[in-house]
């Protein structure tokens, strides 16, 4: 007989604060399934009107880059400033750039 797990799985919570913006990671919580995770996220993370949409992802499904490989992963882009769109003037009135 397999042992019954005493803890519910961990879930990562993403909230979209308003139309047009993307979902942003806000934290994590425990829940037995996706339905409960969304309800718990609503109760824990949107009590102060933080959001209009919630995503939850079970934490085991999040695959991360390895912190020890930071050099080879990220440093090569440090000296390539020409990749930043800093040579353009942003017209007035354009938000979220």
């Amino acid at each position, binding site marked *: 007989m397999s042992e019954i797990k005493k803890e*519910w799985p961990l879930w990562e919570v993403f909230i979209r604060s308003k139309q047009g913006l993307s979902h942003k990671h806000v934290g994590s*919580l*425990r*829940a*037995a399934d996706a*339905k*409960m995770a969304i*309800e*718990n996220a*609503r*109760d*824990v993370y949107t*009590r102060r009107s933080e959001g209009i949409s919630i995503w939850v992802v079970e934490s085991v499904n999040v695959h991360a880059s390895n912190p020890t490989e930071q050099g080879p992963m990220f440093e090569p882009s440090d000296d390539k400033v020409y990749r930043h769109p800093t040579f353009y003037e942003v017209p007035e009135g354009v938000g979220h750039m």
Partner: protein
Amino acid sequence: MNKELYEYVLRMGDDSLILGQRLGEWCGHGPILEEDIALTNVALDILGQARILMDYAGKLTNKKEDEVAFLREEWDYKNVLLVEQPNGDFAQTILRQFFFDAFRLPFFKELQNSKDETLSGLALKAVKETTYHLQHSSNWVIRLGDGTDESHQRLETALEDLWMFTSELFYADEVDTKLVNEGIAVDVNKIKPIWDAKVSEVFAQAKLQIPEEGWMQKGGREGKHTEHLGFLLSEMQYMQRAYPGCEW
């Protein structure tokens, strides 16, 4: 003063006030952090509804909201007996909540059509809140009922304790008759079949049997309460009794 309206507002307001206080007792004691916050969210919604009604009852009698809420004697509270029952374990709290939410949602939906603007305005706001409360409590009844042997057993025990308090939700007397005729109050006879259908639906999923017809308790609407209300009131009223008029 409109005596019937005052009575009607108190009944509804006391249901909210007393249940809000009960749920507030869970604050810091929830089974898990997430549920602790969920229960206190529900408590705050319900307390918000209570405040509107206490304020309204106060306006009808030239009193302040706090005076109405905190400075009455036990027999002047008109809430149904269901809401004053102790929290017990989580199953007990959830089942009490489910019975109440399943009543309150269709009740508030009807109350939106009330000719009394304070009541219809309250109902408009409360329908959204209560829709979520009912979803939350129904989901938990199903999870506990269709969960482990222990969770099912605890829910069965809660059902045995609470079922006899459910029919009082549909209490109606001459106060209701008069206000229903004036287009102010909700005819609870219309709510009963909706409540029955919801309970059947959720119980079927929770693998629970609806109990046979049996003795049903009542008395709360007339101010005759169970032994639990006095203890709740002594805690709830302490601040206003010790420091009259205190605010923060």
